[in-house]
Each structure stands twice: as C-alpha cells, then as structure tokens.
C-alpha cells in the first residue's frame, strides 16, 4: 500500500487523529458510491482520486513547491483562480466538508457557526488535512460574516489575503471588484515573485474556461430523459474539480462526458424510467458531504442538477477570451465573476431566475432548497425562493442540515414524504 506517512509527518500533521478519518472513508465511500449500479466507467478516475485523496494530489502540490511554485488555498467561487495560475501558482479549494473536522472548529468558533466554516477552521487547527498544511497562502473573501471572522483566526496560522467582494451588483460594485482583482494581482505577484502578463493571464483564462466548459458539457448530459449519470457521481466530479489540476480536470470530465453522450444516444440511463428528477439548490457541499444526494437517490429519485457552488455556480458563465490587454482581461474577469449569484448579495433575484431557468432546462419534478445549519443568508433567502417557486407551481422542500449523521433518518422521512407528494 502507498505509504504517505512520511509526507504527512513532514507536513506536521497529527497522524493519529488523521488515521481516524482514514478508517471511516473507505467504508462510507464503498456504501455511498461503489454500491451504485450502472456507473459510467469514466468514474474510475474519480474513484481513484478519492482512494488516494490525501496522497496523490498533495504529493503533486509538494513537487510544485519544491520547484519553487506557490500553492494558494481558496474558499469561495468568487476568487479568480486565473490570477494564481497566471503567476505560475496553483489554486486549490479548501472548503471543509467533513464532520470529522467540525469538533476542532467548535473549540474556537461559536456553536451557531455553519459546519463548513467549522470544518475549514478545524481542518487547519487540528492538523488533519494535508491540503490545509500545504497551502502557502490562504485567500479569503468578504462573503458571509462567519467566514470574515474565521479569516482573522486562520491569519495567525498562514499568510492570508482577503478579497473584498461587493455586496451589491451595481455598476460601481463591478468596478470595485475590478480594482480588487488588480490588488490581488499585486499580492500574487509579490508572493510568487513572478509578473503576470496579458499573455500569461490569457493562457490561464483559457485554462479555467476549458475546465468550466467540460463541466458544462457534463451537466448538459444530465438533461437527458434517461439520466446517464447519478447525481452523486456528478457531485463528486464537481467536488474534485475544486482541487484537481485544471487541465486534467477538463480532460477527465470531457472523457466522462463522451461516455455519457454515447449512453444518451443509446437511451441508457442509470435509473429506471420515470424516476423523479430533483434539483438541489442552496449552499455548497464540499467533499465528502454526500448526505442529501444519498438520501434522495436511495429514495427512488435522481438529482439531475445542483444550483450551488458545488454545481452550476462554479462553472456557468465564461470569461471573455478575446480581451487584448491586461486591463481588459481584468475587466472581463470582474464581469464574469459578478454574474455568479450567491445569497451574500442583495438583492439576489438573479439567483431565483437561475433556479427557474434550471428547473426548466433540466425538467425537474421538484426542488430541494437546502442550506447548511446556521447559514443565515441562504436560510433567509429560502423564503423568496419558496415564493417564486410557488408562483410557478414548482414543488419545493426546504431543508436545513449539517454534516452529522444525527438527522439522517429525519431528513430521509421528509424527503420521502416530498417525493411521495410529487408522485401523486
């Protein structure tokens, strides 16, 4: 067996604690993922990534550092990865999705903090995640209050840059974000020691766009009447996209999409005909948070699209590749990122438009609008989501949950009742 212990102890990880996590993952992944029937062969790659989750990619990042490169850890889809890659750095998503890290976060954070923030802080403080140990710099953002304050705690651990994300989307806000990207360029240039040019930024814009296009292609396949891939599997692809090498991510997602397109031409789906089609909208599900998808898909329905940051919000909208100068490229970046619709903005009616559009495009029978516990933003917005969906006669169920298994049966009962209602 691959032995990464030396690498982990060089990263000053707590091997004993980390070992507890390593014990649970194989069992859970086996039951949640490997028990599915008719999975596309293209999922092999993603099964491989999960099997080596704290080994192969961390080793690649360390290699990058050995040859003088820097690694930037990020926590939000508003952070423009293009800037990092243009300076020869690597950006890697760090959002914590594991219940295992929550307790360590709770030691320093108020109990009414969302589990994503608790897990992200806990992963670092508890020294149980190699990615959190490897990143040379963390890049935070001013989105929700919980995160803003968490950056101040993490800043005592790792060099931290916080990007000021506007809270509204007026013209002056897009301009402000454009200036913010310029400041980020300066920070990244100083930290990496390499200058960003129109050429290098142009390359990285294409690199990240290609990743987005590949994920768009994958999601396109989920619109088929006979869904060729489970929601769980599609979610896993998106979750892994956050920290995999972007060009490999595009390559693998394209390869998988090709297989899915062949399935579509043969009308071959992974679920029985007439399986209910569900959209999940709301807060992100960072790896290994598979709880809700597992509930839905073991209750006789299929998740066909996620309106979330581990879903469409991650890859919808491309950056204009034709901008000729660095100035114009930065403008194009600001414009693209400000099209993403997160509940941290006010007003955020464009997100509701997104949900309505996706409901139609993916022909969903119902929507589960969900937010992580104590996420005040999405929880409040769910009222407006519900209202808008009611007007269009689209059934919706609002669920609030965390990473634990405590509410599993209760959630399952509610989901099953919702599905029952949809069937009637």
């Amino acid at each position: 067996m691959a032995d990464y212990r030396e690498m982990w102890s060089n990263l000053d990880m707590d091997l004993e604690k980390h070992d507890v996590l390593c014990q649970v993952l194989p069992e859970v992944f086996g039951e949640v993922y490997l028990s599915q029937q008719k999975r596309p062969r293209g999922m092999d790659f993603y099964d491989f990534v999960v099997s080596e989750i704290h080994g192969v990619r961390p080793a690649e990042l360390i290699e990058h550092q050995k040859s003088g490169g820097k690694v930037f850890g990020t926590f939000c889809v508003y952070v423009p990865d293009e800037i990092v890659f243009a300076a020869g750095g690597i950006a890697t998503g760090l959002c914590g999705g594991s219940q295992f890290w929550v307790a360590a976060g709770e030691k320093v954070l108020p109990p009414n903090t969302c589990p994503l923030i608790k897990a992200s802080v806990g992963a670092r403080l508890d020294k149980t995640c190699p990615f959190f140990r490897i990143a040379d710099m963390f890049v935070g953002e001013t989105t929700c209050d919980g995160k803003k304050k968490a950056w101040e705690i993490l800043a005592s651990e790792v060099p931290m840059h916080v990007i000021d994300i506007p809270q509204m989307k007026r013209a002056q806000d897009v301009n402000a974000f454009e200036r913010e990207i310029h400041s980020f360029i300066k920070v990244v240039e100083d930290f990496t020691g390499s200058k960003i040019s129109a050429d290098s930024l142009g390359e990285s814009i294409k690199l990240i766009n290609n990743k987005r296009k590949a994920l768009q292609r994958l999601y396109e396949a989920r619109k088929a009447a006979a869904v060729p891939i489970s929601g769980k599997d599609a979610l896993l692809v998106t979750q892994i996209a956050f920290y995999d090498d972007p060009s490999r991510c595009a390559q693998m997602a394209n390869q998988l999409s090709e297989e899915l397109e062949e399935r579509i031409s043969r009308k071959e789906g992974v679920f029985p005909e007439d399986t209910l089609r569900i959209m999940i909208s709301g807060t992100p599900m960072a790896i290994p948070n598979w709880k809700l998808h597992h509930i839905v898909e073991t209750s006789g329905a299929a998740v066909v699209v996620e309106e979330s940051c581990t879903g469409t919000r991650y890859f919808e909208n491309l950056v204009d590749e034709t901008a000729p100068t660095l100035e114009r490229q930065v403008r194009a970046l600001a414009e693209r990122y400000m099209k993403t619709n997160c509940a941290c903005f006010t007003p955020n009616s464009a997100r509701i438009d997104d949900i309505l559009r996706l409901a139609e495009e993916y022909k969903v029978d119902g929507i589960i609008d969900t937010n992580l516990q104590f996420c005040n933003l999405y929880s409040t917005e769910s009222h407006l989501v519900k209202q808008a969906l009611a007007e269009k006669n689209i059934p919706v169920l609002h669920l609030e949950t965390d990473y634990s298994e405590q509410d599993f049966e209760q959630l399952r009962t509610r989901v099953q009742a919702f599905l029952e209602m949809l069937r009637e």
Partner: protein
Amino acid sequence: METDNRFYILFPNHHQGLRLSQLLRERGIDYLIAPTPRQLSTCCGISLIVKGGDLEEASQVIAEHEIVVEKIAPAPKRDGDWKYRSC
C-alpha cells in the same frame, strides 16, 4: 457489481493498481477502484475489487503482466444493513 463474494486486490503503490485496472478493462473483467478498507491494511490508497468468479482470470492477468500485488483478500463482511455515517 454484486455485493457478496468480492475480493480486494491490494498494491504497493497506485501505479500497479491503475495498470491492472487498465488490463482488466481490456479483458472485459468487471472491477471497481476502491479505497482500501482499514480491516485489510493500515495504509490508505487504492485497491481493486473483483468478483469471486473473476478472481482466477484476474490472477492470470496479474501473473502475465507481472503486476506487483501486496495481497488479495475477501471483502470484509458487514453485519446487517449499513447505516449512514458521516466522514
């Protein structure tokens, strides 16, 4: 893949495992890439799961192509229904 009568093939590194998965795929032998269960090894990393009925043919492929295998072991039994747990 059926859930009982399965075997785990363990490797000293992931290169061997990925090579074997390629070869099994070419031969049309069903397999799954899986994280190694703790009951079988204290180190993490990939294993391949094959059906009991395919084990002999898989072993032939391993011998023919000199794949380095650490061990082959029956899948650990689980008692009763699995209850969801977080990780």
